[in-house]
């Protein structure tokens, strides 16, 4: 096997393993930590695909910001009740059934998709893709600020809405930071 395929299988196996642990571990903190590891190994896969900027963003935003927030918040709560609620009882049963059926739908969709021609790239097209110059972060910037400019500006607005919403939610009456 080639070096790159060995590396890919290693990273993919690690990603799947940590992803699986994320949903099977009872303790929410371990769940979050496993999700963080999943993000890091995903960044590794992006790296392998030469999508360096996306890999860096994956590290800085998902692993370094979003998951830090999750872990931080989970550590603040008394989670023994949650750990019990999610490992047995009605709640857990419903979630398990829901999760398994969702997974089943994804598997069926993937199999059906692979029979239709949506996912299959014919070899001529693949060769043409190989011949193209490696896309760089500069190319990403050019596309982002020309073709997807409107979406980009709207994203800024969306983030503003979320920022205002967070403050509003934190001020709901009875909260620790409510305005009297």
């Amino acid at each position, binding site marked *: 096997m080639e070096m790159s395929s060995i590396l890919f299988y290693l990273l993919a196996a690690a990603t799947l393993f940590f992803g699986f642990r994320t949903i099977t571990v009872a303790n929410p903190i371990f769940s979050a930590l496993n999700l963080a590891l999943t993000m890091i190994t995903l960044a590794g896969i992006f790296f392998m695909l030469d999508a360096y900027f996306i890999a860096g963003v994956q590290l800085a935003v998902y692993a370094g910001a979003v998951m830090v927030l999750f872990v931080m918040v989970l550590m603040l709560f*008394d989670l023994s009740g949650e750990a019990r609620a999610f490992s047995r009882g009605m709640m857990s049963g419903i979630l398990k059934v829901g999760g398994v059926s969702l997974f089943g739908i994804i598997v069926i969709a993937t199999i059906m998709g692979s029979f239709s021609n949506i996912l299959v790239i014919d070899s001529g097209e693949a060769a043409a893709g190989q011949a193209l110059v490696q896309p760089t972060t500069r190319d990403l910037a050019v596309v982002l600020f020309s073709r997807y400019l409107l979406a980009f500006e709207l994203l800024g607005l969306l983030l503003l809405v979320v920022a205002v919403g967070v403050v509003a939610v934190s001020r709901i009456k009875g909260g620790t930071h409510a305005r009297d």
Partner: protein
Amino acid sequence: MYQLVPVLALSVFVALFGLLLVFLASRFGPRTKPSAVKQSSYECGLEVEKSTTTKIPIKYYLTAILFILFDIEIIFMYPWALAFGDFIQAGHGLYIFSAMGVFLAIFVFGLFWEIKSRALDWD
């Protein structure tokens, strides 16, 4: 791909180095009988009263979420700053500046709104 191999190799090496240090310390250190008092959490000499799960102000949570939002906005400036020179050289300097200008205006408005609404106050 070839940039990933050395990073992984180094991470594995550092992790093994850390394990070795912890292992060596456990070998060389003196061993004494553990006792309940000795193994208890440090609380400046007092008995441990409550567990660690206490109420923490929601401010920490708010700060963390606001951080994520602003962090995403900042990350978007990186490709912009990278391509800024190229756009100027191609004669589209004003275009790329105003493209980010709108985004920055939203950013600045958001930040000053947060400051003015006292969401960032710690008291």
